[in-house]
């Protein structure tokens, strides 16, 4: 008997850290005893998989008991969560409470008691305190990492079908999931159920809309970082929730005697655990590194919480989590802007360009972790056709009468201002399916610069008596571009080596050894040397073509 009593005392001592009471009320020879094997001390039932659990067993080995587990709140019984038979020879029993009452509604934050005891009266009783809290992430801001300038706000270019209306993703938080209108709290809906996480916004032309206006309360915009760089996040915690009755309720923490902390679990990279948290707090920390390739990927985060007796460092999980997923575009380097441009982001269709590039990268399969790979992917993706991608960007065609166009007019590039209407081009070629060389140059220079390729500049070429060319969107090589003639009054191409090598997304040259006649062998103009037998000057024209460097265009 002494031994049994001593064992009971030891059991009490072990479990009291999690809060438990063990009683032995029957005659000593057969007196059953409930022994706690641990339980959830702090719970947020509104997290995915959230709630409270208690694990216990009956002792001694010969004891038997018909038992039940009930949850009690300030006003009495909330819910019976378990009934069953216990035997001293059974493995420990675990019961779970999902945080709802008998009607299935989530209970308010506050103090509860999970009581395990004999079913029907006399017998051992075990009271396990549970503090219900409301905790979660409402805002996430992606930031530069340390002193690096490696994170940027991306830009959409449409609003209700109209292009040229620009909206940069907010720098103060790319992810927002808060109340709107008459709603009571950020973390919950007005019926007391948790506010669902916001899925990543996958449209690449238009931001999240609330009627005619930009949405301000719920969105999950993509983030842009330099490829292969560190990330940094600042998250804001919700403050309070909404009860099932629709009333505001407090967060329910801090809980006396306990610390709470935030844990961010990443599929790759190091997880993060914060210090003690308070409702509404903002917490900044380093996230996982970005992929080395330029393109599109995803940052998945599982937001969890842990508690520990104050100062103990013995952390236990708050059951459940809330997960967010963020679309990530990686850039080769900092985006490049037109000289003199003011602002921290392109006023242009940045998300659309990044998504186009990512799509091309997926299809073409070139390593995009280098500038060479980025340029090659861009040229082949933009031009399409002979790269294996069926059509040119937006299905455009070279602006010649033979193909149905006209005399090669600018449709998207403004010769006067030297600005490019890339938004209209990417809005299903809103100013016409036909493009000329300046349109292609304007799109290529600004697009590659958005992706972080350095020193991208236009080159204006003088008159050209052409050899065989394959114009963008054309069905084949031609030596009669205009039907009656085969020459240019000027031509616009691109360079990143001040003209030593050139890039042309508007046409392909003929590499079959007889560049002046058809058929032709497609030759990509991906950093093609200007001079030499395989050079652009020789393969493109029968005259010696003059060239002059111009400045990177702007956008409108």
């Amino acid at each position, binding site marked *: 008997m002494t031994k049994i009593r001593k064992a009971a005392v030891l059991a009490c001592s072990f479990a009291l850290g999690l809060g438990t009471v063990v009683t032995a009320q029957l005659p000593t020879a057969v007196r059953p005893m409930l022994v706690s094997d641990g339980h959830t001390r702090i719970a947020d039932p509104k997290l995915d998989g959230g709630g409270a659990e208690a694990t216990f067993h009956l002792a001694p080995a010969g004891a038997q008991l018909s038992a039940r587990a009930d949850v009690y709140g300030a006003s009495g019984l909330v819910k019976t969560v378990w009934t069953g038979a216990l035997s001293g020879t059974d493995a420990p029993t675990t019961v779970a409470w999902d945080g709802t009452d008998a009607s299935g509604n989530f209970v308010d934050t506050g103090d509860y008691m999970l009581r395990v005891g004999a079913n029907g009266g006399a017998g051992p009783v075990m009271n396990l305190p549970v503090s219900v809290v409301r905790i979660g992430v409402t805002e996430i801001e992606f930031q530069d990492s340390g002193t690096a300038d490696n994170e940027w706000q991306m830009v959409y270019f449409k609003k209700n079908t109209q292009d040229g209306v620009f909206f940069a993703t907010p*720098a*103060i938080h790319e992810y927002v999931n808060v109340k709107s209108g008459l709603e009571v709290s950020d973390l919950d809906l007005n019926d007391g159920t948790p506010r669902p996480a916001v899925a990543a916004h996958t449209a690449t032309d238009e931001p999240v809309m609330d009627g005619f206006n930009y949405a301000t309360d719920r969105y999950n915009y993509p983030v842009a970082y330099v490829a292969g760089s560190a990330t940094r996040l600042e998250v804001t915690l919700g403050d309070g929730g909404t009860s099932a009755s629709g009333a505001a309720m407090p967060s329910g923490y801090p809980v006396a005697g306990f610390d709470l902390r935030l844990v961010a679990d990443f599929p790759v990279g190091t997880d993060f655990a914060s210090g003690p948290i308070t409702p509404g707090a903002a917490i900044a920390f380093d996230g996982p590194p970005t992929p080395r390739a330029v393109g599109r990927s995803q940052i998945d985060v599982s937001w969890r919480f842990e508690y520990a007796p104050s100062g103990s460092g013995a952390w236990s999980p708050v059951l459940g989590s809330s997960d967010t997923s963020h679309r990530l575009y990686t850039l080769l380097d900092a985006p490049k802007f037109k000289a003199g441009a*003011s602002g921290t982001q392109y006023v242009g269709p940045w998300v659309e360009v990044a998504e186009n590039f990512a799509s091309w990268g997926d299809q073409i399969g070139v390593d995009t972790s280098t500038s060479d790979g980025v340029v090659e992917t861009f040229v082949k993706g933009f031009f399409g056709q002979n790269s294996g991608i069926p059509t040119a960007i937006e299905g455009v065609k070279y602006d010649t*009468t033979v193909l149905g166009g*006209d005399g*090669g007019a600018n449709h998207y590039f*403004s010769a006067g201002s030297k600005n490019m209407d890339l938004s209209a081009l990417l809005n299903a070629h809103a100013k016409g399916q*036909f493009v*000329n060389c300046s349109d292609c140059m304007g799109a290529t220079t600004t697009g590659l610069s958005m992706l972080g390729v350095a020193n991208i500049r236009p080159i204006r070429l003088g*008159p050209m008596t052409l050899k065989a060319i394959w114009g963008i969107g054309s069905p084949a090589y031609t030596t009669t571009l205009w039907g009656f003639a085969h020459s240019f009054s000027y031509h616009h191409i691109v360079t990143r080596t001040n003209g030593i090598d050139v890039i042309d997304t508007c046409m392909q040259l003929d590499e079959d050894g007889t560049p002046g006649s058809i058929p032709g062998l497609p030759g990509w103009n991906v950093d093609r040397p200007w001079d030499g037998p395989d050079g652009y000057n020789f393969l493109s024209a029968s005259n010696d073509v003059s060239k002059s460097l111009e400045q990177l265009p702007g956008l409108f």
Partner: protein
Amino acid sequence: MKKNAKMKALLGLAFLASLAGGAHAQVTFDEHVSSVRELYGVEQWSLGSLRDGLTLGELELPGLLGAELRLKDGLIERAFTPADAPKDAGSALIVQALVADSAEAAQDQLVLWLAGLTSPTAAPTDSEFGVDLGQAGYVGPSGSGPRAVSWVAFVQGNVAVRLLNADVEKHAALPLARLAAVVDAAVVARDPLATGQAVPKPEIATFGAAASVVAGRPAALAVAVVDPRGGAAAFDWKIAGEGQGYVELRDGAWKFFPTGVGPVTITLTAIGSTGTTATRSVEIDVAHD
């Protein structure tokens, strides 16, 4: 007086001849523009009367429905869709215009449009398509149909206009030259300005905002614009600087929604009903929330 088509064709042939000779011709953009001016005989174009502009936002074109007037890269622009087209159908026609302070400046705009042509020959004149537009007019015939037209551009006094067929394969029958004549007539319908009278512009009578705002909290903008003919002005907003944000009309009032910390310059361009513009800016500092 208008340059006749025969003269232009001869100049075009001369241009081609310079190519055939392998001449190391114009290289820079300015030199290219000079050659284009020569090709089209711009010096022979007469200067038309100055008018207060083009009421493009109110313009009605037969069989077409116009969208709202916009400002794009300094030009006013309005898209039109066929009246019988489904709601989500794309535009069929885009009309761009510059209401300049002088006839010379309007002619410069027409030259810039013509300088964009990569074809070595001059574009055909408006008269070849049965219309007589302003002091100079040119047409971009399309290969999409026997009478299909991709663009028409002309200058009428101090107003330069370009009509673009937004989908010439789909809308090959769009009578662009006749529509251009309607636009030209709309310009001519405005009374010529008196000698020495400046082209009237809208006035931004009020434009103000708090000097400092907090990121995430919308701030009211005080805006009042006087249209030169008492019509309705349109608004174009640009945000520049280290900070970020956007401007929207909410509940009848313009508001700035700051979304990034730092100084911003909000530039308002008011587009008057006659197509002229006025611009003012305010500086605002966006503080951290």
